[in-house]
């Protein structure tokens, strides 16, 4: 669907900036297109930020405070889309979930289950958390020991999260290198990695919260 420029009134292909008069355009674009990127999963986050800042400087409503209402509105919508796109693509896990959605895959339903490979770890961590809470009041060496166990577990989960992030990048490379549509098994590998990462993230938050609240008390 063509977009009419609010400033020069010419019809344009959907994009954020009018190629003729440089005014902002209120286009309906996906997050990759908004930032002028191909639909690839591997993205250099530092250069992504540069693109985002450069486009932001041009499109932001602050630049059009005295413009016509239609131009102001286009600037607002274009900047909102730009912001949302940047935030979506900046984080690898959010980017991957969005990519899956664009390719018609659903992630939400099978993302709640504990991934089998992590079941044992999660069970042990929960036990340790319960133990720490139970002996917390004593303030004695037992409490310190329980706390130490949770802290060690936190370090382990931190390491696993790092591995999961590295695995995600490997899957990204595999998908970007494969044809279109990507083979089902790579997509399944992506989903599995995401689910595991999400679960580790939740576990990490629980561990950190428990350790923090103990610090505050």
């Amino acid at each position, binding site marked *: 669907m063509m977009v009419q420029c609010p400033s020069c009134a010419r019809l344009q292909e959907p994009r954020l900036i009018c190629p003729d008069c440089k005014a902002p355009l209120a286009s309906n674009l996906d997050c990759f297109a908004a930032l002028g990127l191909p639909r690839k999963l591997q993205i250099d986050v530092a250069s992504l930020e540069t693109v985002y*800042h450069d486009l*932001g*400087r041009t499109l*932001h*409503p*602050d*630049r059009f*405070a*005295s413009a016509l209402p239609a131009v102001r509105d286009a600037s*607002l*919508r274009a*900047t*909102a*889309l730009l*912001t*949302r796109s*940047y*935030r979506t693509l900046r984080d690898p896990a959010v980017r991957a979930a969005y990519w899956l959605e664009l390719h018609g895959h659903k992630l939400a339903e099978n993302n709640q289950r504990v991934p089998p490979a992590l079941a044992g770890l999660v069970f042990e961590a929960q036990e340790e958390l319960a133990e720490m809470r139970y002996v917390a009041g004593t303030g004695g060496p037992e409490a310190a020991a329980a706390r130490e166990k949770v802290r060690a577990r936190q370090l382990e989960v931190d390491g696993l999260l790092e591995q999961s992030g590295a695995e995600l990048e490997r899957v990204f490379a595999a998908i970007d290198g494969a044809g279109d549509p990507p083979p089902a098994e790579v997509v399944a590998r992506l989903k599995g990695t995401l689910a595991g990462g999400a679960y580790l993230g939740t576990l990490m938050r629980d561990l950190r919260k428990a350790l923090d609240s103990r610090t505050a008390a």
Partner: protein
Amino acid sequence: MSRIFGIDLGTTHSLIAVIENGAPRVLAEPAGGGALLPSVVAFDGDNQTRVGAAAVELESSGAENAVVIRSVKRYMGLGHTDLAPEDRRRYTFADTTSPVVSFKVGARAYTPPEISARILRELKRRAEAVLGGEQVERVVITVPAYFNDGQRQATRDAGRLAGLDVVRLVNEPTAASLAYGLQKLTEGRIAVYDFGGGTFDISILNIKGGIFEVLATSGDTHLGGDDIDRAIVEWLLEGVAPDVARKRRVWNRARSVAEAAKRALSEAERTELRLELGGSTVVKRLTREALERIAAPFVDRTLECCARALADAGLKDAPLDAVVLVGGSTRMPLVRRETARFFGREPLCSLNPDEVVALGAAVQAGVLMGAQGDLLLLDVVPLSLGIETMGGVMERLIHRNTTIPTSTTEMFTTAVDDQTHVDIHVVQGERELAADCRSLARFKLGPLTPQPAGLPRVEVTFLVDANGILNVTARDQRTGREHSLDVKPSYGLTDDEIERMLEEAIDLGEQDIEQRLLITARNDAVHIMTALRKQLKDYAELSDPAERERMEGAARKLAAAEAGSDRELIARLVEELNEISRPFAERIMDHAIQQAVEKRTLEELS
């Protein structure tokens, strides 16, 4: 296009500033007054409004029927149910059907935006006086970063009611960072700790290549120097009979004594508080150490917000490049010490903490005028926005600390066959249940063409603009047609209400002028009648009975008119009496000259 001005609409005082030759400057009262306008609005017994120093004067004169409103900012965007017993002790609120609180002033009720509009009008008047008649039309107004949507809308409404075009609302800590950033004092990751009279904000920013990007913000819109003052008042009034202590006038006096003591203790180690209680006097000594014990819980609350903001910015353990202190409450040594300890570095406070926000607002006004080069501010939404879903759960659509402007779309459909409307309840906050979040507005989507359940597909866009204010639009996905949305703000004014208030303000504006002229005419009348009565007594021999009768007749007519409210009649009769009594007045003058000459002659002779 006219210039854009920057306004800091503060809890305790307000300022207006503008960019001149690339540098921001605050505009002070021309007659040698300061730059700070006390954010105080007072109505005397005749419903005359006074703003700023004049309002403070009226308050301290102890005028019997005066209604004095301080800290109106704390009431912006509030509903009746938000009022605490403490608020009701301080002010009388009007009983209205509207969800918006309003102050009762005589027979009238004023909403917080209407009161704030009077402060804004005074700032506009001041700036126009300083700048020799340049019109102030377009402004940037600062708001606490942690202000919710309703509080922001109320601030924008205040601007509209003051006849101003509010080009942008800017968060106070962000504005402060602009003022510091312009001085190249800071680059990299900085924290702005803004502890003012009524609100606390903490913002973490990354400044890089002219882009001021807020990473996270937190705060409390009801935490400020006011609260410390109140705690001192409670300490001061300990042991005073409750019926005396609860009197509004006693409390107000105690508040100003407490505030003065707090200020003094930023320099001195100890001070004495004296409170006259009509007959007795409370005298108490306060040391800085004791004040710090009173203030510590409030400062602790600010640090909790700081910890949250650092965690949200993902900088919990990362060092900051600078910490900036803003707001009058950061003058307290306790605050300086505690922030230095918490952030692990000495905070910057080289710019006047009372002026820095207004200066930053002027810088942002400069950005909006295209006069600040590449400078760009990217702020965030302070609280998550969402909708109430089945079972009363809050579904988050826009998470807190998302860069603005931002938008998200949501698909809505019908639950039953032939449903013609869909209700959308928008809430803001971090709690799981919609009932625990702040209700912003209810939108009614429709009318929809009757169809089987689930068939209509309406795409609703939630867009947060650069002011941090939510805009909602709806579009039918099949036809692409815009849908109308009927908006009912939960604690805000509708457009119709603002229109009505604007009209009233204009009418009232004329009434104000009319009222002032009437008072002037009455004063003139009383003046001339008093003078005539005295002259008739002192110089009775200079007038004959017929002339005397004419003058007394005119004076009686004037006295009758003076009791009424016909200003023009009073003015005419004053003029008439002047004419009739002129020969008498001239004779008195001649007589006086004569006497003076005679006296001198006598002196010369002797």
